[in-house]
């Protein structure tokens, strides 16, 4: 099994073997993060830049820690301080950063597909940390890693993805990844937030949360992106929470081995009630721990392929 990709732009472009290699590699890196000395020299002398045009704490810190634990040097650039606020284009900003001999750029941008522009226009490796509503591959990979840890496999698992599917890059990446690895995915959410033709991605659609909870091994609750709700997709937050929010009463009707995941940040009381978010079935913090391991694996693999 060898890795042949210079970039990680999405799980759509990866094969099942690629995804399995990342998950396998991440196991070793999880062990590294559990040591007293949490650092290995694998990427010594490499420079990794995080270039974020959208707010993020968890993902950016996770990537930064991942790079640092591999001994790479890191640099963080946030959009509000970058030159794009002075009118520079995305590609120009990135090219200028690259001109300082950067080896990899971890990019988050509000435009779907923006990472492709960078991958084509730059020589360094690009890792997608979320592009618009399209993909957020490392989030899906850490979700899959967590599932594999919990169940020992992904093949045959029944996974529910709950919430705003329309705007969710996490949902899309998870659908690509999980279906490639043989899981059965059901998406559930308000019909206004359900993309038309989503079934073509190989998933089932169900509008009844209780049924999904009952039928699933794990559910991924998505964050309701309040910043993307200005177009009146929902009558009210309260109604959303009543129909699609997960609380302990609804969980009690489902199997006790069901696990609840969330990519964060959680709107407590909206998609998850506080007792569920902090409850026994929640693996939210384990997901965060696994995120560093998965991102270490991605950086290690992506920076390994020779750039022609």
């Amino acid at each position, binding site marked *: *099994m*060898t*890795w*042949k990709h210079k970039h990680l732009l999405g799980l759509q472009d990866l094969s099942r073997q690629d995804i399995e*290699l990342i998950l*396998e*590699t991440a*196991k*070793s*890196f999880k*062990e*590294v993060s559990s*040591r*007293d*000395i949490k*650092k*290995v*020299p*694998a990427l010594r*002398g490499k420079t990794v830049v995080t270039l974020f045009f959208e707010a993020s704490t968890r993902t950016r810190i996770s990537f930064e820690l991942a790079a640092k634990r*591999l001994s790479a040097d890191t640099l963080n650039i946030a959009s509000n301080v970058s030159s794009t606020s002075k009118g520079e284009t995305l590609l120009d900003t990135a090219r200028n950063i690259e001109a300082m001999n950067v080896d990899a750029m971890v990019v988050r941008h509000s435009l779907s597909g923006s990472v492709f522009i960078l991958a084509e226009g730059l020589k360094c490796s690009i890792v997608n940390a979320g592009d618009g509503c399209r993909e957020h591959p490392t989030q899906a990979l850490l979700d899959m890693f967590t599932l594999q840890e919990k169940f020992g496999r992904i093949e045959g698992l029944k996974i529910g993805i709950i919430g705003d599917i329309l705007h969710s890059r996490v949902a899309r990446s998870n659908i690509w990844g999980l279906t490639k690895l043989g899981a059965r995915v059901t998406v559930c959410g308000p019909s206004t937030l359900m993309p038309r033709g989503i079934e073509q991605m190989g998933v089932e659609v169900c509008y009844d949360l209780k049924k999904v909870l009952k039928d699933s091994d794990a559910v991924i609750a998505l964050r309701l992106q309040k910043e993307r709700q200005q177009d009146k997709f929902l009558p009210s937050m309260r109604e959303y929470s009543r129909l699609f929010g997960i609380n302990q009463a609804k969980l009690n009707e489902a199997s006790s081995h069901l696990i609840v995941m969330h990519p964060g940040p959680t709107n407590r009381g909206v998609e998850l009630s506080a007792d569920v978010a902090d409850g026994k079935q929640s693996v939210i913090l384990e997901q965060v721990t696994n995120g560093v391991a998965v991102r270490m*694996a991605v950086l*290690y*693999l992506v920076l*390994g*392929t*020779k750039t022609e």
Partner: protein
Amino acid sequence: MSLVKVMDQEAIRRSIQRMAHEILEKDKDAKKLALVGIRTRGVVLAQRLTAAIKAIEGVDVPMGILDITLYRDDLTLVATKPVVRQTSIDFDISGMKIILVDDVFFTGRTIRAALDALVDFGRPAVIQLAVLVDRGHRELPIRADFVGKNIPTSKEQNVQVILDESDGKADEVIVED
């Protein structure tokens, strides 16, 4: 291409047995002793040495597994990254006498990487090296403390250690031209 069998199952068994005796001869009560096998075949050899030590002295010596991939000095030179596998050392190595175990001792670069990896886990009192085959051609000032067999080779030759547990075939050591 010619293949020469330089050690068979019995020779390997006797070598491991002798090395276990030598290790115990130098460290009688084996109280602070621990073995760390370097993936892949060093692990198998470390398991066999641990079992032999148990059979001789009745002591359970802790054993760890080391994957040195992330510490290699040629990571930036190879075209595709080698597959990383897990390291597992579930005891504190600080103050211990650690014996690193590997199958073939060649340039010494694997051992250098292993030393770097090991000190990230703590500060052992002593680190020693046990190898099944020493084929010469060192590129670094490193030597082995316990050697199963010295096999003179040319640099171009390939030495292959086959072990039942890792390869699913009868034990042997082969020199390939």
